[in-house]
């Protein structure tokens, strides 16, 4: 199957021959697009706040190599280490998440960030997502295969608790991702179909509840359903950008939309891609995300350890869902949702958290021949 020279038993050598090199390649390609788009989209945002034009680009060029190192480092780990790492990250980020209510910085009406000296600000919820996916995968797998430990109950409690914290922030987009990841894991672990159906209905009911509970969710839905009812400035400008870009784009640096969109370098980075590089590049980026997601899910399904299958599934779903939600918001397929595009949107927390997520994913989707007992 894999030609491993007998004399190459080093960690790196083993890693190289067992890791999912296609996914790794796709991730690196996504990062390259991220560099390109940050250079294109962030200077106007920096100029708006009166800073050096390339301040965001420079910072992102610090974050990305760091993220790459973290990702590769984690991908070297064994599944057991991944589980332990997830536990540590989870505990740490839950503490920080709770701390946002006390010492958080309020940005645009939500307390999601914590100021860390030297790192400006950190968004703990970004780190909760991947670690929670791994932990709940382990709990579910334990219940399912070992029939010991109240894994289902514990994972329900954990996810419920995290969701409560996220809703309080409020960070609805993040809650949707966490809930969806857990729902997929439950589905994969063998939830009866009627429960799955019921869960889908309950999820829809939750959305309706959010509509009535949170005014900003309501206004976004209203504007999505009836574009004339309110200010759709970002989305309209974004659509205009795609229209301007057409098939091959206006060319790098030729875009105008980035000067008008406040979030052109973060949530609406695809609009800049659409305008300056065109549909072809957008579809390439979309294909890369789809490729990594689906390939990882496929590899997860071939695993012999249920924990690995569930954890890899959760991480792949998180990665793919975040990309899908971000892009769908940009093109008005779903109501606008504050969600970063993995490795492409500007932001240190996002890049680092995604590095942990993808690092664990790469580690878990390695060929684990003979490693089952190590789990």
């Amino acid at each position, binding site marked *: 199957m894999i030609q491993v020279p007998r004399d190459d038993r080093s960690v790196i050598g083993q890693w190289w021959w067992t890791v999912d090199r296609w996914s790794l390649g796709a991730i690196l390609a996504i990062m390259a697009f991220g560099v390109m788009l940050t250079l294109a989209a962030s200077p106007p945002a920096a100029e708006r706040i009166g800073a050096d034009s390339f301040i965001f680009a420079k910072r992102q060029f610090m974050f990305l190599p760091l993220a790459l190192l973290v990702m590769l480092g984690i991908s070297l780990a064994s599944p057991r280490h991944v589980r332990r790492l997830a536990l540590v990250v989870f505990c740490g980020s839950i503490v920080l998440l709770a701390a946002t209510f006390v010492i958080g910085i309020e940005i645009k009406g939500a307390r999601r960030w914590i100021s860390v000296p030297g790192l400006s600000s950190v968004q703990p919820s970004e780190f909760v997502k991947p670690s929670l996916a791994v932990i709940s995968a382990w709990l579910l797998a334990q219940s399912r295969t070992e029939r010991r430990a109240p894994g289902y109950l514990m994972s329900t409690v954990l996810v419920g608790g995290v969701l409560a914290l996220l809703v309080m922030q409020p960070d609805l987009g993040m809650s949707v991702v966490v809930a969806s990841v857990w729902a997929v894991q439950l589905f994969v672990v063998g939830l009866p179909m009627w429960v799955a159906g019921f869960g889908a209905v309950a999820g829809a009911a939750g959305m309706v509840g959010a509509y009535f509970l949170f005014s900003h969710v309501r206004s976004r839905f209203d504007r999505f359903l009836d574009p004339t009812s309110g200010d759709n400035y970002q989305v309209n400008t974004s659509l*205009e950008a795609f229209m301007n*870009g057409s098939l091959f784009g206006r060319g790098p640096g030729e875009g105008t939309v980035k000067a008008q969109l406040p979030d052109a370098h973060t949530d609406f980075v695809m609009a800049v891609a659409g305008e300056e590089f065109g549909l072809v590049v957008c579809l390439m980026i979309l294909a890369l995300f789809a490729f990594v997601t689906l390939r990882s899910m496929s590899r997860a399904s071939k695993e012999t350890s249920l924990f690995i299958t569930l954890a890899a599934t959760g991480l792949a779903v998180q990665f793919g869902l975040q990309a899908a939600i971000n892009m769908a918001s940009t093109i008005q397929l779903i109501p606008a949702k504050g969600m970063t595009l993995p490795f492409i949107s500007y932001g240190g927390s996002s890049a680092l958290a995604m590095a942990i997520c993808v690092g664990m994913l790469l580690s878990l989707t390695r060929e684990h021949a003979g490693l089952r007992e190590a789990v």
Partner: protein
Amino acid sequence: MRLWRKSASPDPAAAENAAAGARYASAKERLKGDAQETARQRLMIASVIFGIAFTAVGLRMGYVSLLRDGAEPTQRVAARGGSIQSERADIVDRNGAVLATSVPVMSAFVNPHLLLDPQEAARKIVTALPDLKYDEVREKLEGDRTFVWIKRGLSPREHDRVNRLGIPGLEFQAEERRIYPQGTAAAHILGYASVDNTGLAGMERYFDQQLQSGETVQLSIDLRLQRIVEREIARAVQKFSAIGATAIVMDATNGEVLAMASLPTYNPNSTRTLTNEALFNRATLGVYEQGSTFKIFNTAMALDSGKVSMTSVFDATSPIKIDRFTINDDHAQRRPLSVPEIFKYSSNIASAKMAVDVMGPEGQRAFFDKIGFLKPVTTQLPEVASPLWPRHWMKINTMTIAFGHGISVTPLHLAMGSAAMVNGGILYQPSLVKRTAASDKGRRVIQQKTSVHMRQLLRLNAVEGTGKNANVPGYEVGGKTGTAEKPGRGGYRQKALISSFVGAFPMNDPKFIVIVSLDEPKGLPETGGYATAGWVAAPSVKVIIEQIVSLYGILPGDLKEGLPPIEIASTPVPAPVVPAPVVPASIRRSPGDHRKALPVRPAPGQTAAAPGPGVRRVASE
């Protein structure tokens, strides 16, 4: 936890059979195997759903990029950091009426390098903007430049027409344009600003920094009164075929200019066709020999010295011959005259004697220096002229200056000095911006009792002297005429006159100074062929005073002594019985704008709200 599916196998019996014989370990293996099988199936379903979602995103991307609307790509002007200009502030009158404001407009420019066919483009542009000339536009478009303005400050209609041309390389820049909503009103005070919003004249220039930093300038001008004054002098200019005119209404008690007009005038909204003549502000830039109105200052100077009293007599029996000049009287009485008679008959001979006998050249010069007639007026306009006066101030100069020749000052000097002579002796620098209390405390230049005598003299002149045509019954108007011959080549031109009238009222405690001056008026049969001030300027002063009292709701009874001083109302006073609109509709303020709707003070025995209608009519007729 019965909810969870225990086995993937459709046949529980088979699973049990299989597990029955196996060791515990293998049963566990079996369970794991089942779980893996379930997971594999479920993952397949999840992958398909994900695949559908990604496909949907991709399709939607294609749709919005290529198919949506089928419209042309829209072009937007990207906002570069800090390029948005701050709006130039308004200039408003004393009641807040907007005299100058800024509105956002679009300006068209072209990058000629992007044009496919400059001649074709020029032809199209000229059809959309007919006021441009084809040759000029084509020359611009064929030049080797990357930026040329086509037209700045397009109207929305023009912007639409140009935009519809769809010429590549032709773009728009958002700018702001200065608008003067009152047209020609107060043009010389406001001045105007360039297309780049730099003040080039008037208040726009004087307060350029302040306006650019967004701070509104409030003038002392009352737009309603300004309109009245402008209309009246325009009428006088037409009637007497004058070449120009100027008028000033000043608050004698603090130096605020309430109205100031100069003809010919211009419209600051269309500065392209300006002529120097129209731009010239006669009130502050025109230095003229003022003629007999200077007798106000000559008499005040003499009385204030204490060497002359109201009963002093000066001989005006025969003309004075000095050097090669002869000083004569227009209304010669050929006898000794008392001071009131000198004033009433406007005797040049007696005035000259008074100046020489009492003050001498040095004293006279010191007096005119004291009342600010030897240097430019200090006010909020860049356009102020220096007076002309003799460097060697000798006896002959003293004599002619006594009746207003040999010295040239601006009409604004005249208003400033006259105010000081009648308001109790305090000189205030003229102000074109609304004064806050005590912003200029003024400077005493003559004694209180001298000022009282001056009031009496001016009132006398309006009752029995040359100022009769300015008298408004019931309002105690006082005034002095001044008819000066304009200097020409080799002497004075007898037919070219500057006819001025200095009016003030109410003379028991003057509040208003009204000056009207006509340049080269021609006599009419009804004036007996005279073009002197008493015939041509005094009637205009009368009309203006009539309008003032109706505008500010001043009643004859308001003028009695011992009442509080007159205030300038910000709103016209509605006539309670006969709703006679004495203020033209165009300048009346809306009812919602009423701030002080009451007459300034009630007459004795009357309430403010119900003055007698007959009294009101005096003012409006």
